[in-house]
Each structure stands twice: as C-alpha cells, then as structure tokens.
C-alpha cells in the first residue's frame, strides 16, 4: 500500500510517499498513524500529535477510526488551509 504525505507531514517524513507492507495489527487510519509514530525518529517527529493529522482513503476524507481495508493509497496530512 502507498502512503502519501503532504505539507509539514511530508517535510518531517522526508519523502512525498512510500510503499509499505502493513503489519497485521494495523487495521485503521489511527492504527497506521500510531505505527508510523513508533517506527522511527521521522515518524515520531511527524505523528507525535495524532490529533493534528487528517487522512484520506481512496480520495475521501476519513476519520482515524476508518478501516484501511484494501485501499491503494492512504494520504496523511495536516488540517487543510486552502481558499
């Protein structure tokens, strides 16, 4: 599965996206954020405050409880600031 990062999440992760094989116990977006935060120093820097993270699954904004299922892409990013 591909994880795409945006804005300061991308800067802190150091890459715009990565392909990962998810551990079996990562079922939801919240699980994924927790797993990334624990995985390494970059993840800890980007995801230390999970309440500041928003997500989209297959093009739809979702909450942290959303099941990742067989989605091709999970996007992780800060609250949006367009307009």
């Amino acid at each position, binding site marked *: 599965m591909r994880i795409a990062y945006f*804005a300061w999440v991308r800067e802190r992760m150091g890459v715009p996206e990565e392909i990962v094989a998810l551990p079996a116990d990562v079922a939801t977006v919240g699980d994924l954020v927790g797993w990334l935060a624990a995985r390494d120093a970059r993840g800890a820097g980007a995801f230390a405050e999970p309440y500041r993270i928003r997500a*989209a699954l297959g093009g739809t904004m979702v909450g942290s409880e959303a099941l990742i299922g067989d989605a091709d892409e999970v996007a992780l990013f800060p609250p*949006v600031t*367009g*307009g």
Partner: protein
Amino acid sequence: MIRVAVESAAIDVAAALAAHDAGGHGASASFIGRVRGEGGLVELFLDHHPVLTEKGLEDLAAQAGARWRLGALTLIHRVGAMAPGDTIVLVLASSAHRAEALAACEFLIDRLKTDVMLWKRETFADGRSAWVEQRESDQDRAGRWG
C-alpha cells in the same frame, strides 16, 4: 456549465469570466482571493494532491449545484509558488437571480477552506518559513452550511 480547475500558472480572471458568462445569466457573483503581502511575506506556496485536490473542488461544485439553481459555476484554485498580489482562487457562480448566485459563491469559498486538499506555506523576507495553521473561524464558517 461547471468548470473546475487546479492550475499552477497565473489565473486569467478576465478569460475565465468571459468563458463563464458565455451562456448569459441574470446574476453572477464572484470572489477573487489574492495573496496578501503582510508582514514582509514574499512567497505563498500551496501544496496540493495531484488527483484529490481537483476531486475535492468537483465535489464542492456538485454540492453547490444540488443546493442552488445555477446556470454556471467556475471554480479555479492556483497551486505552487505565488507572490503578493497573485490570484489564489476564483469563484464565479451564476443564476437567474442574485440570492442564489451570492449564496453559492459564499458557500464555495467557505467550504474551500476546510474540505479541499490544499496547504499554504508562507515565506518571509527575513527567511522565515511556516505552514499556515487552520483557523477555528474558518471551520465555524464552513460548518454553518450543514
């Protein structure tokens, strides 16, 4: 006619308005958002998603089309690096009467700030650079529309 676009080049407001008005409408409301050069700002950069940002604009346009009787709708958002004075966003909404055109325009600009994958980063003359935080007032305004 609905036209939605995400553009990295300068938004040509006159050309967009001419295309939008081609059908003729009783009332057209417009909003033009521009980069403010306050506090020594030299660059505004807008990060976006290559696919989902445009999809977000399309979803908003469809929602506006379902809520109001619109003859035409144009929604163009710029991305990438911009300078003070540059147009960031153009919203044009037309209907037979002013109330629906104005309401649709306001709805779109409010929801743009909370529903579409866009992120602003400000760079200042002294070299400081920071990502803009979402404002509670923006969420409140977007929430009014239910």
